[in-house]
């Protein structure tokens, strides 16, 4: 029985190493693989919005850091293209 669990753990560890090696290859390096798992995956969400849904509102801050506005304040009259992103 003990031998069975040792064997099972060994296979599991090997699979983990293989998975990480594959991810490293796909990401470009082990560092990138780690970065992807540690920092990217927790923040990546498919989301539930669909075409036809009411667009959610959210308050945004203007570039002066003090004033603000809501996304939905910009949606009257013409289509509004939203471009989400960051600098890095």
């Amino acid at each position, binding site marked *: 029985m003990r031998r069975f669990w040792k064997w099972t753990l060994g296979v599991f560890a090997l699979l983990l190493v293989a998975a990480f090696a594959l991810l490293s290859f796909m990401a470009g390096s082990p560092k990138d693989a780690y970065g992807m798992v540690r920092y990217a995956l927790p923040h990546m969400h498919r989301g539930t919005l669909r*075409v036809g849904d009411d667009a959610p509102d959210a308050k945004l*801050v203007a570039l002066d850091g003090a004033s603000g506005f809501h996304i939905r304040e910009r949606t009257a009259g013409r289509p*509004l293209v939203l471009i989400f992103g960051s600098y890095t």
Partner: protein
Amino acid sequence: MEIYNDYKEHADFLTVYVREAHPADEWQMKSNVKEDVCYAQPKNLQGRVAIANDFIQRFHYPLPFGIDDMTNAANDAYAAWPERLYVIDESGRIAYRGGMGPFHYNPQELRGWLAARFGEVKHEEKQKEADGKG
């Protein structure tokens, strides 16, 4: 930016700055170092505002701009991170929902939506190139 210039007479544009994708203290890419885009993940709103302003100044970015606050409300509502495109129509409904970046972020798809709605905008240089290849 070309899409903005082509369709700004027909649609409004709004860039929403969300949490950093590859900050120096998390998953920094080699390209960030090469292009001297090295910032830590902002820990407060002032940090985000500062980075957003750096971006605007470096690229002379002309599009209207808003910054997601530290609650990440916009990011969460639109599942935006790291980058995503949407179109909200005049009735306030989602008319186009782009794929999640980076691999499914597709500005040409957005252009296709705008072209279907407002007509295609052709550029002389690209048209000449296309004609030359044809």
